[in-house]
């Protein structure tokens, strides 16, 4: 069976100002050859520290940033090779929930306008729009009264529900969620995580959930990928990765209390963990580790295992 979404060897770079009083740009690589796939009905969690490229990965899939190399294949169609209008039609099946709900929505718009906006772009007739709005608000557990409310009047948890409703209105198969709980309080975050679990089970959705918190990702994800500086360093089933993390960086994320050294990631070296890794060898500095399947479906990019 071919996967629902397959990202193959993806490279994304940004130009960043050199800083200070010098002119010109330097190139920052956000993704350096990322390959990941999501099966139909499966949920993938992407975990990593800030600057690991996890948000960029989602943005590349929905076309908000343009990759320099690689392919993004959704149900057999390479999104990067499709024309503009065709890609829009395909992406209708992919919902995107950006980070920070409050900043991704127009503060002057009502909940109704925000949630229905994707349908306007797709040219859905008015009668079916209203009908869809009602069913989607019910799915995310928002009362009907909020329809005409301004987005600024809602609490953070409700804003996040509106953002999820907006992503669901096109009836997607795949939902991309960027840090869905990072701006929320503990009890509100729990409500959103429970909602995501319920939606997955009732609608049979697939997720790609990005977060820096490995435990909240594991609550909704079947598989987890760990990223560091634009590279996937480990991927496997949630249970396998959390119970027996293999890569040194995954161990830092899973059990920070057991790490004594200062952890700094270095983009200049082939393996980002080279500076402090206890098992490093000469090879790690110069040659990029290839994925090794240590257990079934559990891959790690580390020379120590090959």
């Amino acid at each position: 069976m071919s996967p629902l979404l397959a990202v193959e060897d993806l490279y994304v770079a940004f130009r960043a100002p050199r800083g200070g009083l010098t002119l010109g740009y330097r190139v920052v690589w956000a993704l350096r050859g990322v390959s990941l796939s999501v099966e139909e009905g499966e949920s993938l969690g992407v975990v990593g520290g800030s600057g690991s490229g996890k948000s960029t990965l989602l943005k590349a899939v929905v076309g908000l940033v343009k990759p320099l190399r690689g392919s993004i294949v959704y149900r057999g169609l390479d999104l990067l090779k499709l024309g503009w209008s065709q890609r829009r039609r395909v992406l209708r099946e992919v919902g995107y929930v950006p980070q920070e709900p409050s900043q991704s929505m127009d503060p002057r718009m009502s909940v109704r306008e925000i949630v229905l906006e994707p349908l306007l772009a797709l040219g859905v007739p008015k009668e079916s729009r209203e009908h869809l709005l009602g069913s989607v608000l019910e799915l995310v557990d928002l009362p009907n009264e909020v329809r005409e409310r301004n987005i600024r009047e809602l609490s953070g948890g409700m804003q996040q529900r509106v953002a999820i409703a907006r992503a669901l209105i096109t009836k997607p198969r795949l939902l991309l969620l960027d840090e869905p709980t990072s701006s929320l309080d503990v009890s509100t975050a729990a409500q959103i995580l429970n909602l995501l679990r319920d939606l997955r089970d009732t609608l049979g959705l697939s997720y790609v959930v990005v977060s820096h918190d490995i435990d909240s990702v594991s609550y909704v994800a079947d598989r987890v990928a760990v990223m560091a500086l634009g590279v996937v360093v480990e991927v496997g089933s949630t249970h396998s990765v959390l119970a027996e993390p293999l890569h040194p960086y995954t161990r830092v994320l899973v059990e920070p209390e057991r790490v004594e050294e200062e952890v700094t990631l270095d983009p200049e070296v082939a393996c980002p963990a080279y500076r402090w890794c206890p098992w490093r060898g000469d090879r790690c500095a110069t040659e990029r580790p290839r994925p090794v399947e240590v257990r079934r479906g559990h891959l790690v990019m580390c020379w120590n295992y090959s």
Partner: protein
Amino acid sequence: MVLAVRSYELSVGYEIDEGLVWVVDRLNLEIGAGESYCLVGESGCGKSTIGNAVAGLLPPYAVTDGVLELMGVKAIEGRLRRFNGLRGRVVVRIPQDPAASLNPFLTVGEQLGEVLRAHLGQLTESEARKRVGYLLSLVKLPPEVAEAYPHQLSGGMKQRVAIALALAPSPKVVVADEPTSALDAYLKFSIARLLKALQLALGLTLIFITHDITLARHVCDRVAVIYAGRVVEEARTEDLLEGALHPYTKLLLRAVPRRLASERLADIPGTPPPPGRYPSGCRFRPRCPVASEECTRDPEPAEVGEMHRVYCWRWRSA
């Protein structure tokens, strides 16, 4: 034991259009010298206001009541606030957003030097440099950082510089207001560990404010859970994490995703009430699964174990 921070019926309110709103309500704190104490709560519960009150950083339009003593000195007495000689000397605050608290036009060394001169009087150039190096070594930063401007540092390094700035006047009491909320999972832990190490090494009294109840385990001796401006439960960290008794604390602990546990997270219905719209009696009452008639009266503290206090009428049935 000497108490570093003691408050008796301390209330803090803000004057807004609709009148006076009490954000912190009759708070009794007793924090010993050299202790690390954690204030845990959700946004809007008043934990930052408590932190600002202790650090002497309440805005002029804030209204206070009750008593706050710092190292035996009355800093707040009714509406009077006398923090001269205390603020920035005995008690300091580590800000939530380090990027906003550093001056982008000064190097780290210049900023630290400025604070040192303000507190120690004139220093020679080499003395100042030596002290700056010492402060940076305290927060585990290399001495070269002194030459860097804030924009050249990463988020974790900026937070370390902010901690070094706070420690420059050799304070006794440090209020850390969500020092880790802007950081990712590993940095969060490493900053928490650094604060704990500094607290032990320098004998500081640390008030650690966070919404992350599990982080308290790594930093604090004691924890107070705040809900709607009041303490609902106070205990030693282990006792609280293992044997919470207040219904709110229990639900809060069950709302945090646990490693490899698949049971459903606790849904606490509704949201915390905003200041000014607190219900009468127990403030958790409208959301509480075990609330009953008696909860309409203000809960009295129940001593349920050594240093374990619960503000709930129904803790036995929760």
